[in-house]
């Protein structure tokens, strides 16, 4: 029973991170019908940037204010990078009316540029993320051990998801995003500037990726230039499991996949967890291709 709750806590931690990253994939897909393959690399970049900022400001002291500086600084830089990605890699193709495949190739190209850029800047070797960015206390509740990092990651992932949910569902710009995801032309007829919507989703997605990247650093404590693929792929699978294009689906898919991975690691073996992830993916694609929450209300024409 202890293993169960312990793996649940571990799974919620990883799941929260997956969910934050998955939201970026799903929002971009929702509006642009494009898989932004460079999204995972923004996660890796965020971990490097976070590490770099921490090395500058926080080596001697730690505490909440340092953590906030690291988070806010990283978010700002990654959001800027995400906007540049959209402006350089995607918008020109859209304006030229290029076919969808071109955008996919551009996404892959952007991913390679980012990975090689990170390798040039920070080198090919693994870097260790500092452990003192959060207090290293742990709690034991009935034999289940929760570290302060886990607690922090679980709670703040949920908070950021809630904030995104409120933004998407309760604000005018959020409604415009949902409208553009359903029908870009009709959205334009409402006066919605679709380019502005797209920039907004890149800002939101990159901001969440930045937070995800810092959390990856805090939790796994390793940073390497091509780790974006690993986390990106898992988050992408999570987005598909939840129903790609569906925002609550990405949240649910992320958390479910994290918990699923943790249980496989706990009860089978951690070396099998990736294999099982793909078995899950294939199962979902066979039995529920639209994902768990991906079913749309039929539109009568």
């Amino acid at each position, binding site marked *: 029973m202890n293993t169960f709750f312990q793996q649940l806590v571990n799974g919620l931690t990883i799941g929260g991170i997956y969910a934050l990253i998955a939201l970026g994939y799903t929002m971009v897909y929702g509006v642009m019908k494009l898989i932004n393959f460079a999204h995972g690399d923004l996660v890796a970049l965020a971990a490097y940037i976070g590490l770099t900022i921490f090395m500058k400001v926080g080596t001697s002291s730690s505490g909440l204010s340092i953590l906030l500086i690291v988070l806010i600084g990283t978010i700002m830089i990654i959001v800027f990078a995400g906007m540049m990605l959209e402006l350089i890699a995607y918008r020109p193709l859209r304006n030229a009316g290029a076919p969808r495949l071109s955008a996919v190739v551009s996404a892959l190209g952007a991913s390679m540029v980012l990975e090689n850029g990170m390798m040039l800047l920070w080198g090919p070797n693994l870097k260790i993320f500092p452990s003192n960015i959060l207090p290293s206390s742990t709690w034991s509740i009935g034999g289940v051990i929760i570290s302060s990092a886990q607690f922090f990651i679980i709670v703040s992932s949920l908070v950021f998801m809630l904030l995104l949910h409120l933004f998407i569902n309760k604000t*005018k710009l959020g*409604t*415009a995003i*949902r*409208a553009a995801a*359903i*029908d870009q*032309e*009709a*959205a*334009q*007829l*409402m*006066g*919605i*500037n*679709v380019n502005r919507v797209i920039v907004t989703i890149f800002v939101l997605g990159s901001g969440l990726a930045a937070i995800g990247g810092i959390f990856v650093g805090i939790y796994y404590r390793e940073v390497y230039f091509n780790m974006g693929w690993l986390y990106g792929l898992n988050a992408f699978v999570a987005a598909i499991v939840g129903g790609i294009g569906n925002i609550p689906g990405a949240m649910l898919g992320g958390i479910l996949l994290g918990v699923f991975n943790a249980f496989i690691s706990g009860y089978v073996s951690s070396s099998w967890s990736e294999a099982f992830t793909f078995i899950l993916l294939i199962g979902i694609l066979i039995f529920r291709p639209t994902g768990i929450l991906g079913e*749309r*209300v*039929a*539109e*009568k*024409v």
Partner: protein
Amino acid sequence: MDNDRLLIVEDVEVSYGNIQAVKGISFDVRKGEIVAILGANGAGKTTTLRAISGLHKIEKGSIRYKSFEITSVPAYKIVSIGISHAPEGRRIFGTLNVRENILLGAYTMQSIDDERLHWVYSLFPRLQERQNQLAGTLSGGEQQMLAIARALMSKPEMLLLDEPSLGLAPILVKTIFNVIKEINNAGVSVLLVEQNARLALQLADRAYVLEVGKIAISGSTKDLLSSTKVQEAYLGKKSNR
């Protein structure tokens, strides 16, 4: 008088790839008018409306609204100029609820005008009852009402309607056409694309008949209703020559 003319379309040509769908048409809509564009399937009616609202780039010609050249204005700016488009196939946002759809119609407004909202709901009381229902679950007729309601929220001076009667039961078509008349009486000029020529000719002041991308016949609806050619081709009447 030129400043009576709200919309002026001049020698407009539109193509899809190599296929020219609209082959140089000119027409205008004056303030307060209902103008109908009639024609068979594929005549280029929808393409014409899409060109006006900027959804499709035109190859040649010019489109002016009031004194603005709107030929290359991007689609999302058209509505704030005063032209609202209820497109073919309704294109409502199916996974948003009715109220969200209606409020999106006022996206360019600083705030929602309650008076306008009341007016729109008074035109379509059924929508008010169904405010919280997902738009995709509305009946076809209700979806058409929603498309028109949504288009009115930006307080347009000119309304483009693309086949509002398509697929509706005759009784509902009557209702929708009465509402169009009411909207027009409130001062909104209407450019109405229709295949239901008889009803459109009864409602509109003037009409243009499109045939494969060209204007074949035009004139006041009174004249068109009595023209043998129109009767034979579009109103299904046999002449007794």
